[in-house]
């Protein structure tokens, strides 16, 4: 109690306070210790491996400390993987996020929201490998999809949908959409519905309400959604191998890292590729988040209530 009264007094009085009281004034007390397990976890499982990998990437098998980076950016076989990955990750992210908006807007008004949400969440719990297996069987040359189309005479020979770019893209959409949808839905339901009602009484039709009210309030959430979805798709590995052409169009950056580590046993090179991968992700995420800082990010309710 005395600490509280003295804190109002001039700084000279500060000397008389115990260390504990002075720390408490800066917001550090016993409760602060609760943060320790989390800090240890982050250091052990994120900071340490990251720093270790970074140092490893600067210790190549041969050449000076930057040799691995120089090698990566001089061999098309390696640096092309960045473009190949972006070519998958960017469209998949944009498609997922864009489709999630109208779907979430519709679902928001439904009464049996939970059933639909559950159905959509199942792909997340299944994991990419099971989805890949399913797609291989369903979309393959002898799969149901091609058979039905041929039965009705729409096509005459099977369409190639797996072991190429399309297969990986479909899998990314299937496994990524539920995630983006759930995020968008939660952001959307957080917007006070009376704002749209107010806009409609002021003469705004559905289109104007969407662009003037919903989108500006949804934008910060969509930016986060884009970031998470992008990071997820950028590190695509199982579906690129199982459903794609891992030696060709879908030779993504994580495949290059895998090959360096487990086929050439060059951990230093693998770390270099992982570092470059992280750097590309960082650039894109930073770009999205800096765009986010230009839009309104406050409350999404229109006053007290």
């Amino acid at each position: 109690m005395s600490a509280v009264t003295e804190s109002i007094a001039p700084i000279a009085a500060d000397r008389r306070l115990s260390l504990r009281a002075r720390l408490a004034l800066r917001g550090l007390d016993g409760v602060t210790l609760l943060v320790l397990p989390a800090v240890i976890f982050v250091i052990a499982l994120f900071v340490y491996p990251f720093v270790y990998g970074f140092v490893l990437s600067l210790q190549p098998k041969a050449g000076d400390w930057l040799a691995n980076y120089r090698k990566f950016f001089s061999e098309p076989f390696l640096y092309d993987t960045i473009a190949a990955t972006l070519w998958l990750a960017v469209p998949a992210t944009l498609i997922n996020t864009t489709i999630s908006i109208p779907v979430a807007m519709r679902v928001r008004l439904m009464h049996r929201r939970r059933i639909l949400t559950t159905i959509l969440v199942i792909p997340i719990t299944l994991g990419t490998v099971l989805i890949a297996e399913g797609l291989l069987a369903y979309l393959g040359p002898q799969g149901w999809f091609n058979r039905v189309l041929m039965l009705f005479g729409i096509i005459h020979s099977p369409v190639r949908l797996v072991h190429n770019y399309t297969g990986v893209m479909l899998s990314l959409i299937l496994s990524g959409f539920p995630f983006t949808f759930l995020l968008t839905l939660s952001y959307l339901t957080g917007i006070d519905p009376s704002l749209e009602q107010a806009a409609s009484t002021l003469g705004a039709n559905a289109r104007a309400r969407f662009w003037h009210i919903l989108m500006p309030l949804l934008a910060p959430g969509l930016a986060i959604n884009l970031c998470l979805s992008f990071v997820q798709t950028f590190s695509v590995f199982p579906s690129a191998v199982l459903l794609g052409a891992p030696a060709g169009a879908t030779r993504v950056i994580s495949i290059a890292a895998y090959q360096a580590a487990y086929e050439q046993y060059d951990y230093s090179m693998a770390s270099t590729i992982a570092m470059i991968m992280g750097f590309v992700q960082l650039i894109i995420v930073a770009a999205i988040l800096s765009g986010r800082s230009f839009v309104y990010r406050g409350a999404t309710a229109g006053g007290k209530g």
Partner: protein
Amino acid sequence: MAIAARDFRELRLDAMSRNFGALNALKGINLTVQRGEFIALLGPSGCGKSTALNCLAGLLTLSAGSIWLDKTRIDELKPEQRGFGMVFQNYALFPHMSVRRNIGFGLQMQRRSKAEVARKVDEALSIVRLGTQAEKLPGQLSGGQQQRVAIARAIVIEPPLVLMDEPLSNLDAKLRLEMRAEIRRIHELIGSATIYVTHDQEEALSLADRIVVMREGEVRQVGTPAELYAKPAHADVAEFMGYRNLFRSRVSKGGDGISVTLGGASLRGTPIDMTGEGEATVAIRPDELHAASDGPIAATVESAQYHGRDFYCLGRTADGTQIYFCAKQPVQKGESVRLAADPQRVLIYAGAPA
């Protein structure tokens, strides 16, 4: 004055009904509102007053009946086609827009020129006395200021009808009184018809030209504040208009007029819808039941609240009936008092209290 309501003669609700599943939230509301009128929809929560307002705004569709603005049927129009101004209970200000853009939104939707929008918004700002706050975001304003932005936003589109849904319920008592006067002033300034939903009888009495008392989806009584205050047509309306004392009683006709039995005593009163003798409900406002040495009703004081000018007391008669009354002098718990009321102010309704 540049901001003035679009011209119309009258708004007519013809058997306006709305069901939610099996629940009849509105059971055939008939009402005609003239231009310039201030109408209060008054009733307890769940009486359908907000549903009625949302139906007028177009936010809810009707289950049956129609709404007419002069010769035009409007109940099938979408809210954006009706052009009514609406003030929401939680204000519903667009949090990402400045005060100026919030107010200008309706004009922007009408594709008015930039210069016109700026001019009208300035006028609306000066009407609600918020000229200096134009560039702030709603989140930076106090509750009363947000309320005024919401009003400015609704009136700047010059609507024939302004709808207000309990706009003062989120404000503190002092601000509520101030805003009440503001709302009435703005209403008179722009000359629109205002329909104002409230559950506060005092607010309705002080603001409205006519009060529509609703209960369970029906209109129970329409009248001027004075009519409703002095002569509620039904016992339930009386209860809502501050007649806290509602007693089950029996009417008998004597030599000196009609009297009722109350707490063992006989009291003279005025019948409202009562003919003959029989079971009845007696309604008396606490402030019209005063202590008098020769009063017919004897009661023991159970509690007394000091209300500044007088004491608001709860008493109990010999037969155990609770009775609310006002005392000018301090009274003590347990004290015996005698109470009297003007026969004109003792209202008698047919049937037992609900």
